[in-house]
């Protein structure tokens, strides 16, 4: 780490009359308050979506609606909470507010919910009639009414079909939920008891926060506390601005498409991101295709929270305490309304955050990798990464258990079991979850089987799901289950990326995609009856029904096996640079197959006493041979050019671009370096077929990878995704003349 270049701001000089130690004590107190709220919520909630997936948040605000403390978990809610509280302040202040008021929020259009399934509670905190702050808690509840279960409606055409919406309605006074509201909610959702219980938990958590907040005001006094809030916001803002200023000025451009196949054809909807670094300010400018009458449209918080703030805090502001100061450093432009990045009512939005929001997050992450890798600061160059996939094989099931009870099941396994992006510090994390969700986990097999009418057949790493690279992307999960002592459940599926998986960076390859399938009328029950194993798909027979990514009313019957494969993260750096012993380890760990080792890593695989192994010397020879065919007069062996830092790819040296492996000049800065390298275009579907990696191949407009190799050392410098017939500028960086 280059300590000199990231010298911290001098806290002492920001406000000399304040004591930095007290400021830090106050800051920790606010985060503590949010933590305690989260603990109350976690321990009282019944929903696995809260307790295991941690799909909830607790945030503390000052009286004017500035974020002062938060308890992690869903980073997207950093935006939701802020929009909700600020909207309530705008609408209710000063006359329409009493101590103990309870406001319920889940409308993405007015009060910032990521989607309608996220139900939030906003409560003011008063001390002797004086407003001293706000608490916000929110959780993904298992049902919010509407046409589909679990608040995610793949088939809805507008937001009126999707769910009931609460635009910050007053649902109670004096800290007590209004009976009228309870009655109203009870007849509008499928599982009213758990809904009301969870809302009570949200309120209890807000209460806990208010008690602590009052104690803090008692201790410091309103005015002093206010000064310290200002001070801490200033500190975080300054630290983040200094960090941004270390990025080169200019525009990072990137693009992607959002998938939707819910109405038969598989269509792609274009999005793009221009991230401008302007001194110590970041500007995000998004474009998107015309809004769609399906649930993919991005809500404001899916853009600001999931799209922008998530990659920002994970990649760039990772060590700066979060508060309002971070927001002060960014500007967002989503263009005119009517697009998938800026939709208007009645566009449906129940999958906003994990469709368009997810694509925006991936693009922003890529933009940060692009700018970071061109920074003069080593620490920032080290923050480049492959994309986290943030796309799981989501499913929700609804039916009647054998005891006659209605059951809604929202299995988290294949949603949390998705890979993180490869990092410069090592391979991506396996089963990392969405980038926007911290500390997520999935329930044990035995928890599922005890609670749900399920029998799990297997749960393992999804082979070849981690994107190839010098550092490999994190792995996803492969799991199968069937109904147990129940018949006829109906499912909704929502997989956001089956055709366009997470991209790699700096020569790293995309990760494997997700897939859901049902082995219809399988022989699983006969197998079990005769005591035979059912622990992998090759042990079963039946008709393989590969399902569309976004579909409702999927029947699951006795004897059907539901089989979900989740995607992995993008790789980082050239996989032909990956040390053969690591490829060997992956092979032995059953994280990659022989075909993937050979196709993607250029490995020579042998067999010794029935065990596969990677031949070190032969592998380096094979890699050099394959690359020499592309770059005939290449100057270095790949073993020589492989460098320690997997983030390497293209960097800047004085007035020109250069290959970070061999320092070959790749043109002047005012040129496009991509014209100075050796390109190769391959159909991604064919490549992944050979490498036994999951991908749904597009028939119309197939997907290609455009690999670019250094003209001198033949290292792979970038792997872009292209769509046949679409001529979009590949991701890159433009230095602004200004």
């Amino acid at each position, binding site marked *: 780490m280059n300590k000199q270049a990231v010298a911290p701001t001098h806290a*002492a000089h920001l406000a000399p009359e304040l004591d930095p130690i007290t400021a830090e004590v106050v800051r*920790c107190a606010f985060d503590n308050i949010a933590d305690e709220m989260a603990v109350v919520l976690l321990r009282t909630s019944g929903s696995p979506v809260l307790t295991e997936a941690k799909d909830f948040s607790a945030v503390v605000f000052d009286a004017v609606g500035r974020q002062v403390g938060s308890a992690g978990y869903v980073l997207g809610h950093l935006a939701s909470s802020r929009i909700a509280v600020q909207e309530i302040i705008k609408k209710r202040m000063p006359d329409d507010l009493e101590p103990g008021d309870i406001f319920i929020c889940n409308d993405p259009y007015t009060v910032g919910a990521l989607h309608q399934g996220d139900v939030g509670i906003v409560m003011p905190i008063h001390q002797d009639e004086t407003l001293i702050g706000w608490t916000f808690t929110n959780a993904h509840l298992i049902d919010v009414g509407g046409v589909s279960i679990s608040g995610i409606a793949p088939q809805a055409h507008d937001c009126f079909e999707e769910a009931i919406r609460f635009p910050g309605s007053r649902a109670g006074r004096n800290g007590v939920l209004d009976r009228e509201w309870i009655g109203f909610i009870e007849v509008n959702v499928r599982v009213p008891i758990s809904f009301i219980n969870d809302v009570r938990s949200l309120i209890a958590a807000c209460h806990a926060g208010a008690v602590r907040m009052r104690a803090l005001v008692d201790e410091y006094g309103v005015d002093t506390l206010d000064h310290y809030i200002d001070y801490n916001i200033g500190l975080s803002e300054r630290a983040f601005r200094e960090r941004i200023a270390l990025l080169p000025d200019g525009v990072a451009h990137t693009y992607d498409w959002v998938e939707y196949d819910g109405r038969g054809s598989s269509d792609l909807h274009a999005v793009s991101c221009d991230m401008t670094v302007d001194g110590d300010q970041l500007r995000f400018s998004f474009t998107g295709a015309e809004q769609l009458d399906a649930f993919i449209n991005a809500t404001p918080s899916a853009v600001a929270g999931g799209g922008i703030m998530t990659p920002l805090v*994970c990649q760039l502001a990772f060590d700066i305490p979060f508060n309002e100061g971070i927001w002060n450093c960014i500007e967002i432009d989503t263009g005119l309304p009517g697009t998938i990045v800026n939709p208007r009512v009645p566009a449906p939005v129940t999958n906003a955050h994990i469709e368009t929001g997810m694509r925006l997050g991936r693009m922003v992450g890529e933009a940060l990798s692009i700018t970071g890798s061109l920074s003069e600061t080593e620490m920032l160059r080290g923050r480049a990464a492959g994309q986290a996939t943030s796309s799981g094989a989501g499913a929700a099931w609804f039916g009647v258990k054998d005891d006659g009870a209605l059951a809604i099941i929202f299995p988290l396994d294949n949603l949390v079991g998705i890979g993180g992006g490869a990092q410069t510090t090592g391979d991506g994390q396996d*089963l*990392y979850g969405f980038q926007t969700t911290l500390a997520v986990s999935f329930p044990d097999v035995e928890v599922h089987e005890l609670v749900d009418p399920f029998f799990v057949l297997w749960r393992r790493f999804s082979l070849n799901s981690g994107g190839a690279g010098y550092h490999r992307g994190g792995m996803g999960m492969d799991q199968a289950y069937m109904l147990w002592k129940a018949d006829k459940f109906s499912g909704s599926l929502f997989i956001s990326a089956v055709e366009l998986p997470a991209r790699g960076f700096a020569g790293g390859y995309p990760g494997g995609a997700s897939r859901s399938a049902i082995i219809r009328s399988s022989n699983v029950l006969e197998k079990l009856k005769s005591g035979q194993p059912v622990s992998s798909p090759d042990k079963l027979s039946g008709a393989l029904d590969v399902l569309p990514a976004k579909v409702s009313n999927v029947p699951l019957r006795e004897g059907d096996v539901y089989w979900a494969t989740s995607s992995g993260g993008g790789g980082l750096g050239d996989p032909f640079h990956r040390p053969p012993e690591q490829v060997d380890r992956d092979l032995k760990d059953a994280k990659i197959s022989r075909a993937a080792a050979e196709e993607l890593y250029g490995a020579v695989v042998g067999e010794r006493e029935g065990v596969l192994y990677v031949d070190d010397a032969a592998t380096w020879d094979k890699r050099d041979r394959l690359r020499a065919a592309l770059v005939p007069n290449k100057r270095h062996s790949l073993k020589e050019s492989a460098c320690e830092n997997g983030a390497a790819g293209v960097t800047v040296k004085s007035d020109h671009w250069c290959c970070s492996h061999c320092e070959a000049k790749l043109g002047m800065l005012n040129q496009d370096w991509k014209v100075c390298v050796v390109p190769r275009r391959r159909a991604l579907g064919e490549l992944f077929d050979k490498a036994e990696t999951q991908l749904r191949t597009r028939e119309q407009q197939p997907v290609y990878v455009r690999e670019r190799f250094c003209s001198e050392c033949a290292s792979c410098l970038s792997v872009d995704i292209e769509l046949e017939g679409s001529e979009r500028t590949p991701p890159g960086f433009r230095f602004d003349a200004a």
Partner: protein
Amino acid sequence: MSGISIGIDVGGTHTDLIAIKGDRAVRAKALTTHDDYSEGIFVALEAAATEFELSVDDLLSEHAQTFVNGNTIVTNAVTELKGARVGVLVTAGFADIPRFGRGNRSNEFDDQLQVNLPQIVPKECIVEITERIDRDGNIVVPLQRSQVEQAVKRLIAQGVDSIAVCFLWCTRNDAHEREAEQIIRDIAPKTFVTCSISAASVFREYERWMTAILNCYIQPPVNSFVTRVSEGLRKRGYTKAVEFFNGLGGVLGAEEVRKLPILLYSSGPAGGAIGAAALARRYGIDNLLCGDMGGTSFDTTLIHHEKPIVAQRCRIGSFDTAISLLDIISIGAGGGSLVGLDSRGVPKIGPQSAGSMPGPVCYGKGGTIPTMTDCMVTLGFLRPDNYLGGKHTLDIDAARAALVAYVGDAMGWDAEQSSAGAYSLAVANMANALRGVSIRRGYDPRKCTFVAYGGALPMFAAAICRALNITEMIVPNHSSAFSAYGLLEADYIRRKSVTIGWTVEDRDKLGGMINTRDALEREVSEEIEHAGFSRDDIQLLHGADFRYAGQLNEMYMDLGVDDILKEGSGGMRENFDAAYEEEFGPETAWRDSNLMLINYVVTGIAVRDKPHIEPVEVHRQSADSALTGTRPVFLPDARERVDTPIYDSEKMGPGAWFEGPGIIEVRDTTIYVPRDAIVERDGYMNFRLKL
């Protein structure tokens, strides 16, 4: 009571011994010997014997009546990932579960901190076995014996030291695990085996399997330690039981430790908590917070009604397990915690620590980054020339220079101001941890007494109390060896639980529940009897983990032996609703949902002989005669250098008191008494502060 009770706590740096004979207590210290932990133990025994003017052999053969050891061997093995080569037999389809857990993401923002679980079992040592039991305990796929035999032979050929048997739903039917265990014993009688059902008989396969796997993983170092200590003691003539302390605050015999070595995890911090519980009993204190500050961390817990709180499903290293431990919160604020600036230029403490190598700057062993210890010597709390009773000298100039370089320069502070800032932050961090163990569980810290022990914490403890408005504080006599003392206050505890999943409203299934309870009672009693207690000495406590139908997390509640029979008023349901609301607030109980009893827990306690400590007569008098002079100390609360009176603990008899500011110097402990606080030494020779 003529015998000598010996408690020995093997910590990361020091091995502390306390030997109690009647009203006489002897303390001894040795450096921990990491290659063979028993060496340090015998060095400490040597020193203690000398104090008693005995040979070690005489001490052990003639006088010693109890020997209890607590240690960090399991903690170290898990932290350093130095353990056995373990083989695992696992239900087919689930071989990756021990490798990937339940998802790996932490609650840190930083993507680069998101890494995988350490792989303590290589993939090639995990073998899938065709077998399957369902949630009701029915055998769905029978165990393939031939496959188990082949797998065991293969694992043995691969050189595994031990084998863990990890099957789904063994909690409902353990036939397959037991059968596999027998096959292993037949084929490889010398190989150590742990079935997951033996490690923890509760559902949730990941944590149960990890408990079994970790048990196998840490078995070799624990086993050889137990052998060395037992044989060493026998050779020197000790004939009584050799006992080991577990993380629940009870003791185990050597044979039990060999079977379930994992139970020794976290026994060090538990020693202090049990000692504090003994103080609570002695003084009749209802709610007591206790704390210990070591080199790398600050540990704290709450003692309610003389009993420490138990946490279930505890994490060991990076791994979730089914182990129950005393609920001790640990934060990175120890003497060796590094002091520096964060990304915003604000001073921060830890979480990194200089440990014992290179250690604080003032130790002169190569440390360059300042630590809390450097702050304390800079402020004047620690005497550079007389550290730990003169065993070491401290380089105060190096400490000052480092503090200025790492903190002062950026903040415009001198070394004292930098140290005082770090001190205040450390106090705030520790106060937050105390808040965590009290307020979060519904206890008001202001109504608690704070017991502070260890060598370093008494310098901070009064400031922590003031931050939380705690007015009563105790620094025990022998503060630095208090954890070792606590070992002697432990009882023989056996805690067993079994997963039931009984809907309390379903009275038809009550019969099965009663059978399970009775079987569990028998099992616990028999184990304790096997350890040499008579049935009459055994106290059995009942309890269960409950949750409302529809919830996923359980909450533990104590039960009377026949509470499962009671309905309506005073029944389990009513009691649980009340306990739940006490924990989570009014109106939070799920009154419309059924109540499920998930795990039934029986705890058997056999009371062991304790040191009999009688108070001596107290003569209330000024401590003036113990005053050895004054020393300029920069007091963090006063934010200035003050000529502070220094008292010698040796000269403070029972009843001696003074008003702060002042510092009491004990050989290896420094107690800070701030302004407006009064300290008095009581009849037990403990220091009691009123703040």
